[in-house]
Every structure is written in C-alpha cells, then in structure tokens.
C-alpha cells in the first residue's frame, strides 16, 4: 500500500509541489527568522564585546524609580564635580568624564542631514586615542571649532579633512572644521553603523547635554590589583543612590539584552507572516487532497475491494501528506537559511554598517521548528480528506461517476452558529465600551463562521458576479462551472481571502486613523502653518533654534505664533512627556485647548497644568502637588494650576516657561502660527521657509501637509506589511491554478464535447478564464468583507486611543477586487491553454 502511495505521489509531482509551496514559504519565514536573529545576535555580541572591552566601571545618572530599563532613563548628565568624587574613592586609579550622546546631526555636502537606520549619531568628547578609538588621519581637536568624524560619517556626509561642516546638536546649527578622522579597533569605519562626531572637551557638554560642566558618564580605571567588583562597590557606597555604577560586563549584558529584544520583535513579525502563509497552506493542501480523493474515488474503492482496510486508506493519504510536509519543510529550511543569511548580510553591509557577521548561525530551533511546523501543518490539512477517503464504500468501485458533493447542511448549520455568535460578540463589543477580548473573540468566531459558510455562498455569489459574463455561451459555461463544486470553489477562494482580508483590515485601520486625524485637525486646529521636524521612527523629533520664533513673530502677515518645547520628566516617579508653550493663550486658541478646572493663565514658576484624563487617573485637581524631575534642576514639588482638555500638541503635562533651561533639549520642537486676515498663507510660508535655512530637518506645512506628515509615518510600514501579505496572496494564486488544473483534467470529456460541437480554442480559454476570475473575485470579495469586519473591530478597540472615525479605504478595496480579477486571469493562463489543447478525438472516444 505504501508502494502504491509512493507511485501516486510521483505521478502528481507538480500538483503536490504547488500545494506544498505555501508550506515552503511559511517554513522559510520560520527558519529564516531563527537564522537571522541568531546570526545578528552573535554579531552584536561580538560588537559589544569589542565596545566594552576597555570599560572597567562606568558611572551614569540613575534611572527614575530604580528601573534598570534604558528606556526609562531621562537624558541628563552628571555634574563635572562627580569626577573628583569618584577619583577619591579608594582603589580608583583614574576617572574620566566623557560625553557620548545620540543626536549629533551632520549636514552633508548635499545640504541634507545625514541619517541612519536605527543606529546612533553620537556626539562625544574627544578623550584621546585608546584601546577602542584611533585617529586614522589628521589630528585631535584643539579648539571648540574643531571636530573629528568617524570614517563612516566622513564618507556618508561627503566631506574631506579640512572641510567646514554644519552640525546640529541640542544647540542651533554651528559650523566646525574637520581636523581628524577616527576609526575603531581593527580598522573599522564604524561600530555597528553608528556615526560619531568627537568634539573638543570645552564644547561637548553644552552641545550634547544642553549646558556646560556636564558629562554623560564617568569612566573609571581601577588601581592595579584591585578587583573591579570592589571598586564598583566602593563607588556605590561613596555616591549613594542617584547614580548607576556598572561594570563593563554589566553594560555589555544590558546592551545585549536590548539587542535581543529588538531582534525578538523582528522574529515575531516574521513568525506572524509565517503563520499567515501556513494558514493559506493548510487550506490549499486540504483542497488539493479533497479534489484528488474525489477524483480517485474508484481507484481507492478498488483498493478496498481488493482487501485494503479503511486504516490503510487513511494511512496512504496521510503518508502522502507527510511526504509533502517533510519535503516542503526541507526546501523551506534551505531557503530560510538562505533568506536569513541574506537579510543578515544586507543588514551588516547597508549604510556603511560594520557589524561583522561571525558566520551564519543555524540554531537547533530552525530545523526543529521547520520540520515540526511542516509536518504538523500538512497532516492537519490532510486529516479531513483522509477520513473522507477512508469512508468511501467499496461499491463506489462499480459506480460510473464520482460521488456527488455531499450536502452542505451540517457545514451551514455550524457556519450560521459560529457566524451568529461572532456577530453577537462583535456587536456586544462595538455597542459596549470596545472591550478588546470581546472584539477579538468576535472577530475570530466570525471568521470561522464565514469560512464555514463559504461553500454555501459560492454558488449564489459566483453566479451573481457571473452575470457580467453571461453575454456569451463560453462565459455562461464558465459561470456554471464556477458554481459546480461549491466546496472546491470555496476552499480555493478562502486561501485567497486570508491575505486580502488582512490587507483590507490593515487598510481599514489606516484609513480610519487618517480620517480621525483629519476630523480632529479640522475640528481643533486653527493654526495656518505648522513648523516641525519630520518625525522618523529612529530618532527623537529634531528641534530648532528658539531665535526662529522671534523672527517668525516679526514677519508681516503673522498674527500670532506660539512655540513648543518638549522634554522628558519623571512626575511622582513615573516617566512622562512634558511640554512648555511660549504663548499659552495663542496655542490654546490654535489647538482648541481649554481649562476645565483652574486657569491656563495661572501657570508660573512651579505651577503646572495637566490634561484631564491624566488628572483623573492620578486624582489631581487644582491645588494638588506633584514631584517633578526634569533633566536638570533636581526633583521639585510643583502645584497643579489647571486641568485642561484638548490640546493634542501639548500632551499630558504643560510646564511653565521658566522650566525651559531644565530640559535636555532647550530648543523648539514646534512653532505654530496664524496668518493675519489680509495676508496670503503661501507668502508667509515662503518667508518662514527662508528663516529655516539652518535647520534642514525642519519643514513648514499647512494643515493638510501636517496631516500627511502625521499619516506618512505609517506608509512605509504599511507598504512593507502589504508586500509580505502579498506573498500569501501570491501563494493563493497557485491554489487557483491548482484547482483549475485539476478541474480541467476532470472535465476532459466535457471539453472534448464542447469542442466537437463548435467551441473554438479561444472560447474554451475564455470559459476557463471566466471560471477562474469568478473564483478569484469571490475570494477577493470575501477578503474585503472579512477584512472590513476585522478592521471595524480593531478600530472600535482603538476608540480610546483616539481613532474615533470609521472610514473605509474605498480605493484600496477597489484595488483588491481588481487584483482578484487579475489573479483570476493570470491563474487561468496555464489551465486554459491546457483546456484549449484538449484532443477532441481522445476526449470523446470511449475506450
């Protein structure tokens, strides 16, 4: 029996390959994810080992609330005096104050700021050559106007030794002379893609930390023979709380943990796509096996008649599935290792990065997961067809035709039950307060319901769409064929539906987000022009010279202008984003912000305002006191002067103007302005643009441009996700090809008949194409419907996060349906050609 299985597998290589392809893709994602994270993880390990090799002990400001998470840290410095205190600790041979902070943005020769993808742009103090840093060319900076750039930055900026170069820091743009080029151990241009500017020690603190006499850390060298741990303990007890004292090994471990958690995100994204394509794979394999079992009914019944047992029939189908699963897993593992290695290599080489790959790693988890997933998925998919094969009665061997499709009653009942339950849960979730688990459970149950009901919908829906093609005989025949095997049509369409549903769901959420934002901007923002930096995902939003505000105010045609500073703070030990607004009444007018308790005009030294939801959460009212710590100035007690509503541009906390010097970045993040009635916005905008010549990262936009900038940041991610989901759709196309090919094969006699009575080759191809288009458009319609439902559920769940308007992405929905039609046409090419080539004589001869 196993021999017979093997024979039948070999005779349908291509077909099985097609259905196994989705598993190959899924396994590729799975193993690729493991290979990528392992390879990069080890590359980062090596990098950090290098970076912290020469660090014995380092002292930095302590994070708020005793947390060890780097994210919780407020960017601040340690006072210069700390160096002496550390040096005085017994066992310390040397203590050096260093500045090394992200945010030194060099303006390249093209006038644009040099950017990185995820790596830091460090601004540091030049502390001389050491184990790690070496001068490749030139000399050390001798004055505050001289800098050393690392080799990667020199190349990225397109500058040469001796050139003058503009650099943006927390201070406005300043011009420096490049006097040296630095490299790292082993002649590296960069450490892990970081760009680095080394300033003279006299200016580094002011430029990178906002004020003089600060260091971002103190590096400690223990005296000969004193263990690192002893020095660490000594410094800790000498300095008390408020500082973090870490050894090089601890820093390395912390950096490694950070990198691991970033890689874990990449890992889960890839595994998510793996799950999608594996789901599609299950549907495709199930369909292929169902069709093959139906077509082989007589053959399987004959085997039973010759003495094969039910168990053997079951085993033979499952064995086929197992072979597919193992083969697909093996292929997927191979491509996964390739893809993982390729991605790691791209990552290590792009943008002048010099993360040296320490060889491609294939962790044990990769093959284990690949084969586990491949085998499991194919077996699960084959169980239903296998059981059906085992139930074929022996008498079927004597019957003329294949058994007709079983009635859909049970399936329909289950589908209606699941669909109703899902709809009820969704309604409860939507009508209620948008409880996430209700919506989630509703979405999943509803999805299952739709999947179970697809066979029942196949005939009526495909039939209705098919009316478009009912003008010709070939079109009518194609339409009838599409509704002929509802299960087959439904399964094929379901595979397509998965990808399109996810794409539509995402687009629905994006469209709703945009619409909500647009509504809010229309309702609340009356500013005519908004000056701000382009927020990218990697960096803090860039800031600019406060002098710009004065110059903007002085422009003719500007009726009001308000600037906003931003910073991080700890309020009652909790990390919070704070803002300072230069002209609160003007800002409040432009952003429809108003006090619900107290008065916004009542802000002053140590008197702050808080947004209503935060006030409710922390039980604050005017007169309450909170403990606030900013980058500088220590922890102080402040009084709540007002509680406000609206004012999205401010955030949770509004601080008085007197706090600007205590912020890590004493520069403006935004300026918003209104134009006087008789001035043209475009004119004013041109004049403002001229003022921003020194800040290439900052742009001025009108409200529409602001909206685009706010939504634009999702575009790249959305495109990326859609490309990956597109792969799932692509695989589903193979499913359509597969189904059609099997159907064409099954209908050889019919094709011969219609060819004999006068259907031309062209008409035959059209007939198959119509069938394919109907199946694919049916799938696309289902996908759009399910995706819209999913999107609506997510939008409802996000209601509290400010997505209050539900909007449908009509153009993209239209695109999905058109895509369905195109998929149909493309998928039909090979089966249609095959159908057209049907040899009439062989098809009709009865032997």
């Amino acid at each position, binding site marked *: 029996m196993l021999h017979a299985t093997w024979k039948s597998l070999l005779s349908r290589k291509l077909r099985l390959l097609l259905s196994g392809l989705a598993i190959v893709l899924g396994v590729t994602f799975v193993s690729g994810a493991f290979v990528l994270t392992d390879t990069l993880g080890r590359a980062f390990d090596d990098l950090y080992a290098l970076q912290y090799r020469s660090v014995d002990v380092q002292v930095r400001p302590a994070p708020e609330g005793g947390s060890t998470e780097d994210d919780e840290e407020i960017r601040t410095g340690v006072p210069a005096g700390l160096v002496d205190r550390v040096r005085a600790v017994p066992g310390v041979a040397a203590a050096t104050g260093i500045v090394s902070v992200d945010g030194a943005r060099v303006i390249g020769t093209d006038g644009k700021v040099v950017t990185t993808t995820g790596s830091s742009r460090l601004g540091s103090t030049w502390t001389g050559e050491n184990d790690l840093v070496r001068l490749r060319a030139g000399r050390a900076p001798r004055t505050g106007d001289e800098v050393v750039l690392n080799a990667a930055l020199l190349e990225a900026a397109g500058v040469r030794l001796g050139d003058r170069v503009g650099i943006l820091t927390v201070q406005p743009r300043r011009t420096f002379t490049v006097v040296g080029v630095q490299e790292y151990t082993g002649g590296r241009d960069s450490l892990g893609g970081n760009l680095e500017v080394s300033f003279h020690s006299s200016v580094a603190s002011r430029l990178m930390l906002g004020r003089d006499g600060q260091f971002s850390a103190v590096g400690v060298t223990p005296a000969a023979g004193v263990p690192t741990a002893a020095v660490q303990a000594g410094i800790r007890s000498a300095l008390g709380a408020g500082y973090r004292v870490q050894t090089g090994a601890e820093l390395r471990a912390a950096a490694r943990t950070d990198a691991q958690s970033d890689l874990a995100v990449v890992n889960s994204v890839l595994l998510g796509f793996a799950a999608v394509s594996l789901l599609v794979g299950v549907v495709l394999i199930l369909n292929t096996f169902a069709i093959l079992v139906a077509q082989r009914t007589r053959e399987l019944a004959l085997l039973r008649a010759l003495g094969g047992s039910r168990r053997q029939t079951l085993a033979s189908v499952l064995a086929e599935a197992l072979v597919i699963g193992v083969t697909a897993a093996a292929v997927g593992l191979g491509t996964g290792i390739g893809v993982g290695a390729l991605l790691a290599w791209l990552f290590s080489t792009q943008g002048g990065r010099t993360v040296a790959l320490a060889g491609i790693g294939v962790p044990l988890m990769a093959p284990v997961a690949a084969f586990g997933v491949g085998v499991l998925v194919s077996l699960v998919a084959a169980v239903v067809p296998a059981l059906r094969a085992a139930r074929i009665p022996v008498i079927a061997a004597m019957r003329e035709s294949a058994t007709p499709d079983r009635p859909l009653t049970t399936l329909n009942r289950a589908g209606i039950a699941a669909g109703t339950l899902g709809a009820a849960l969704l309604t409860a979730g939507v009508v209620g307060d948008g409880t996430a688990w209700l919506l989630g459970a509703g979405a999943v149950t509803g999805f299952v319901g739709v999947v179970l009901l697809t066979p029942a919908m196949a005939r009526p829906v495909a039939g209705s769409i098919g009316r478009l093609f009912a003008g010709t005989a070939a079109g009518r025949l194609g339409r009838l064929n599409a509704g002929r095997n509802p299960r087959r049509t439904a399964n094929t369409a379901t595979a397509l539906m998965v990808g399109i549903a996810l794409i539509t769901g995402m687009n629905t959420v994006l469209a709703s987000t945009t619409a909500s934002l647009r509504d809010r901007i229309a309702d609340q923002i009356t500013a005519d022009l908004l000056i701000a930096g382009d927020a990218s995902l990697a960096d803090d939003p860039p800031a600019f010279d406060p002098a710009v505000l004065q110059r903007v105010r002085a422009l003719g045609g500007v009726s009001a202008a308000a600037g906003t500073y931003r910073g991080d703070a700890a309020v009652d030990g909790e990390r919070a984003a704070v803002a300072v607004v230069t002209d609160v009444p003007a800002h409040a007018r432009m952003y429809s912000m108003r006090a619900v308790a107290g008065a916004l005009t009542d802000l002053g030294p140590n008197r702050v305002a808080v947004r209503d939801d935060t006030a409710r959460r922390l039980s604050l009212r005017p007169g309450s006191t909170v403990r606030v710590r900013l980058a500088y100035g220590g922890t102080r007690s402040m009084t709540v002067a007002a509680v406000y509503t609206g004012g999205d541009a401010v955030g949770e906390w509004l601080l008085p103007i007197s706090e600007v010097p205590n912020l890590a970045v004493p520069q403006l993040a935004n300026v918003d302005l209104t134009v006087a009635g008789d001035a043209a916005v475009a004119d004013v905008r041109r004049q403002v643009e001229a003022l921003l010549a020194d800040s290439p990262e900052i742009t001025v936009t009108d409200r529409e441009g602001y909206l685009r900038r706010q939504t634009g940041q999702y575009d790249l991610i959305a495109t990326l996700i859609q490309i990956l989901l597109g792969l799932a759709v692509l695989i589903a196309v193979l499913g359509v090809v597969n189904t059609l090919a099997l159907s064409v094969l099954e209908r050889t006699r019919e094709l011969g008949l219609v060819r*004999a*009575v*006068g*259907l031309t080759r062209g008409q035959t191809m059209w007939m198959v194409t119509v069938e394919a288009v109907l199946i694919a458009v049916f799938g696309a319609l289902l996908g759009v419907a399910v995706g819209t439902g999913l999107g609506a559920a997510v939008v409802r769940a996000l209601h509290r996060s400010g997505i209050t308007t539900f909007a449908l992405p009509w153009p993209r929905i239209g695109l999905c349906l058109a895509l369905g039609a195109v998929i149909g046409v493309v998928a039909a090419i090979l089966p249609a050609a095959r159908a057209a080539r049907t040899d009439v004589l062989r098809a*009709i001869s009865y032997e």
Partner: protein
Amino acid sequence: MTTPVAVRADDVWKLYGSGEAQVTALRGVSLSLARGEFTAVMGPSGSGKSTLMHCMAGLDAVTRGEVRIGATALTGLRDRAMTRLRRDQIGFIFQQFNLLPTLSAAENIRLPLSIAGRRPDPAWWEQVIDAVGLRERLGHRPNQLSGGQQQRVACARALVPRPEVIFADEPTGNLDSRSGAEVLAFLRASVREFGQTIVMVTHDPVAAAHADRVVFLADGAIVTELRAPTAEGVLDTMKNLDRVEG
C-alpha cells in the same frame, strides 16, 4: 447522379505511427453520401469504421486523400475554420457523455447555436422538440433524465442547427433495446421528414437495418454495401465478412 452530395471521401488513407509500428487504418476509401440519405457504416472491431467517421467529420486529419462536407474541402483547414465548420455544418451524437451536466436539456439542445451567438428558428425548434418528445423535460438536467431521454436530447441538439450532416457514433450502444428503438425511429424520421443527412457507425445489425444504405468496412477498405437493408441481410453479410476475415 442527380442527388447532391453531402459528404464525399476520395481515396482516403489514414496511417498511424511510423516505421515498423506503422498501422494502416484506412486504405484508399472512397465514399459519397447523398443529401437526405441515412447511411450506416458497419464492420468488425478494428475495421476502421470509427476512423472513417472521425476523418469525414473533421475530428481527425487524413494522411492522404480528400474529404468534402458540402462544398468545403477539409484538408488544410485551420483549427478555427474546422471548429466553425463543425459548429455550423456538422451535428454529433456520441455513444455516451453527450450532454453537459451543468446545462438543462433545453440549454444543451441550444448549445451549438448559443456558441455561435444565434437563436434557433422558433417554428423549427417547436417541430424538433415535438419530434423528440421532450417538451415536458426541457427544464431538467441530464442527471434527471433516463439514458434514452439523454440520447434524444443529443439528437435534438444535432438536428436544431440544420447541419449538412449528422454523424452518430454507436448512438444506441449504451441503451436498452426500447430506448434504442426510439432513438433510431427519431433518426429515421428526421431523414424522411426533414431531409437530414445522417451517417451512423454501428455494430448492431438491427440498428443498421434502419438506414437507407449500409456500407461494410473490413481491414480499412470498403468491401461491400447493401441498399434498403434488413436486419437478416446485414447479419448475413457480417457473417460472411467474419468468415473472409477468419
């Protein structure tokens, strides 16, 4: 000859394969079928009767010689022209699998016209439907019809476009004797009443006896023919053929 010729085969040869494995299925067959005549082609298995029909119907290409349907020579016709010729001038009735399961009886009958984008002439349609006696069954699907009814639907389908000739390949081969008799009676009637030309390949002497003329094939060549045959006469001729063969 005053009667116009519907189908004509001139020195038709059909060879399969090449070299040692070459098989000669037809060796120089010449045959003229008069319009409005019911011809049966008989012969033992392997005599080439099916091949001859396929060649005359344009389903298979001849190796040598010429076939004409009406005024059209089939030799050298491209697929599109051949398909159109089949659609407009030839009707087919096969032994089995004659109907599309997705179409109703009426739709099946209309299929060739509908492929051509034409509508049947209403009066002619009514006449044919009455003749096959399926008026009550027009809305049924093939799987709701008996074998005989299905074959009568196939007959109507062949007849409705008024082709130059109808080729019937063992039309009664899969039917019980009563259903077979109904189908043969219908074919006979369409020749008599509508002047339809019909060629029927069969191995059943009783079926062949319904024809105006029986042509006997053996080993790829015409050996003899009978006019106004009877079942006994056909049977005798067949026995003689077998004896010659043996």
